[in-house]
């Protein structure tokens, strides 16, 4: 694997700069049955084709995003950045409470 993956912040970068958290799954709600739980945890669809998956630009800007990738060709068709929540998030970056030097 040496394909390029477009980071929403950094642009196309070698895939080994990223970590992949696998295909996007739907976490069951409420009290899942054993079957629902195990299929969520262990049974991935693992398609030969286009798959939506989670990626993190681990050795770069550390952003998480989803990408649609064709698992047969490693062609990345699109990426999507999850919406940050709440108005406070973007303009109030968290800083440690310990005073700066």
């Amino acid at each position, binding site marked *: *694997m*040496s*394909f*390029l993956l477009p980071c929403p912040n950094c642009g196309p970068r*070698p*895939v080994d700069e990223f*970590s992949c*958290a696998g295909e996007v799954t739907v*976490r*069951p709600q409420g*009290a*899942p049955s*054993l079957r629902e*739980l195990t299929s*969520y*945890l262990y049974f991935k669809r693992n398609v030969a084709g286009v798959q939506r998956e*989670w990626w*993190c630009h*681990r050795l770069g800007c*550390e952003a*998480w*995003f989803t990408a649609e990738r064709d698992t047969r060709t*490693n062609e990345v068709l699109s990426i999507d950045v*999850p*919406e*940050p*929540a*709440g108005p*406070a*998030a973007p303009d*109030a*970056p*968290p*800083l*440690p*409470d*310990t*005073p*700066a*030097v």
Partner: protein
Amino acid sequence: MRLPPQPDERIDREAAIPFTFHGSRVTGFAGDTIASALFGEGQRVYSRSFKYHRARGLLCCSGNCPNCMMRVDGVPNVRTCVTPLHEGAKVEAQNFWGSLDHDLLTLTDKVGGPFTPVGFYYRTMIRPRRAWPLYERFLRSVAGLGKVEKHGGRTRRYDVEHRRADVLVVGASEAGVESAREAAGREGRVVLVDNGLDPLPDLEGVEAVRGTAIGVYEGGLVPVDAGTVLHRYRAGRVVVAAGAIEQPLLFPGNDLVGVVLPEAVRRLVGRWSLRPGARAVVVSADQRGLETVSLLEQAGTEVAEAVDLRTTRVREIAARGRGGRVASVELDGKKLDCDLLVMSGGRQPAYALLAHAGASVEYDPGRGIFLTSAIPQGVDAVGAAAGDGVAAAAPSATYNGASGKGKCFVCICEDVTDKDVKRAIAEGFDSIELAKRYTTVTMGPCQGKLCHLPSIRLYARENETDEASIGTTTARPPWQPVELGLLAGRPHEPAQRTSIHHRHKELGAKMMWTGTWRRPHSYGDPSGEAKNVHDALGVIDVSTLGKLVVRGPDAAAFLERLYPNRFGDMKTGRIRYGVLGSDAGRIMDDGTIARLAEEDYYVTTTSTGAGAVLEWFEWWNAVWGLDVGIANVTGALAAVNVAGPHARELMSRLTDLDVSNDAFTYLDAKHAHVAGVPSLVLRIGFVGELGYEIHFPSPYGEHVWNSILERGADLGALPFGLEPQRILRLEKMHILVGQDTDSESNVFEASMPWIAKMDKDDFVGKWSLERVQERGFREQLVGFEMANGVVPPEGGQIVVDGRPGGRVTSSRWSQHLGKAIGMGWVPPELAEDGAEIAIKVDGSVERAHVRLRPFFDPDGEHLRT
């Protein structure tokens, strides 16, 4: 012995270059390669073959075959015909027993025996089983090409460079140069890579690089071998102009020294002014071969006969040798004496790089060669590599290995003969991919450059079919031999030091790795350091802890969802121990969580888990979209832990805080100035004694550290390292994630059921933990103390009813308790205080007793008062 100056010679006769061959002093000229210089010195045998130890000489003279591989300055398998000569080079031939010219193992060539047929090691050497080690030792000593220097480990340094190109042209052939010129100035950064001997072309707007492209990978990645540097090119467009490769003919004796491909004649005569032989026969299926005739004559070589296989039908060719060197050739029974036989089976486009990129490779029956089609986007083939101007290769009629006139080599790298291939077919290896693996044809150093086409021809003929239906094997990188060191590169392991690192060194610390961090193992006396924490006052650098700030309206909700613990009910200024788990209920990390304000938490992680926890937090934050921000302040903040009965006295000297037990209780978090530095002070007790963990800006590391040691000197303040910390935490039965737990552990079985608040609506791992409760425990993490003071090995076996029933995860001798203590996993029925267990220690079995409560201060009085 050189010819008179030739019109295009590349040697500088004024510049003699001395070097050694097997210790004897020899000379060549500037412009020589190692092989040409040796040729000039009269050397004809360059190596001994892989299996039969047959003499081998210059065959292709263009870096495509294994024949000229020698050991140069300690580096094995250097293709000397394409390696420029340098002064003082220490050159040695390889793969011979006895001497290069009289190899003892040529016996295997003459008598054959069990070591020679293809696949012999799969069949012959498996019985009797007991004898395999003997066989193996013998095989290892005689097999393989070249020897790696045992202690050569750090003698050569390799590096990796990441580079970019908009257009990368591989090969400075005419077509390659043309492509580069065309792209220059129009397509951004144009790079031309070439591994030839001629000076790189100087083109405007083109960066020319000396090196060998060893493969084409997805994403336009082309690694280029430039000696001791691997350039990892990312190219927008790759142009393959790798040319075509001259193909040998198949006939008995086709590997004899003096049997050469046309390019060898071109280079020997034209470039280096060497006379390749006294009397030559030329047998060629293309014009290139015939063109050597005039060159040979120019060099004073008598040409006894030149046969054009396209017009003259020769049914049988057989070369005979004397002492491994060609002496005569028979063409349909007509014997011609010669010491040089130029053979040419036409040329095959060098398509390997295109195949790596994903092009399909198909046989063109009209032209007798393999051609590429469906070349993927972003890759182009030009010139001979694309098949332009490449003459059809030899018709299969020249193949006549059956005539019993000596060995006919299909693959000279691996010493595979036509007989071997036929045997493989007879044994049922009728698919080319299987046959490749069984016979190892195309798997040697030439990577199929000289044997791929002939072997497929032979296959087609023996299977009575055509080449197109036999197809081809998958071409994989590297397409040229590459030094392993180059692929391994120089390991760039990040090493992290805390801001107090240099003080540790000055204090005589023995350093150790924990993840990427360098940390003090101890300052020379682990148990003394541990004792000092119990008796007086110790200080340890814990700057390596991961530190995250989690802030925002949803901070509490976020942590409650992530951890099995509860955090929403925490009062501001309080601390809780938390264990992070996955949705499968597995323990991932642990640490403390302090609530600094309503919407503001300070989370610490293990030293090695910081990166993973940060990534985990950010991921769930992206998934849930809660209104919370996460900041990693691991490097920004240093931290030290002061612990021991005198810790409070020390803190009262360093801060103006009220440090009385009522004002600053166990698990309180407070902002304060420590030694004048604004800090966050956490009253926690990983090591079991009254303790304060002080977090403050990294640049003040040494100042705070020194202040503690100075102001606490009369209190007995001394530093302690990681090893004493491990003893102390074990006395308290505090787990180390990753040491006492593994990827299967959950908080219930790890004996921390109070962590999981199962009445919460949801948290990561809740459902899986419910399953654990339902199914019951399979094992449990407990403490144990040894009956007779022996410290069992970590990872050692806990024996139940004479069978493995558990394992030791931690064990130490505690000077303070006067006991050997440990933790380990046991079957749940043994997880009872006082239960007797047995542990394997050095082959004998030792008794131990299970302990469920901390060995030291089980009620935590030391921590709380």
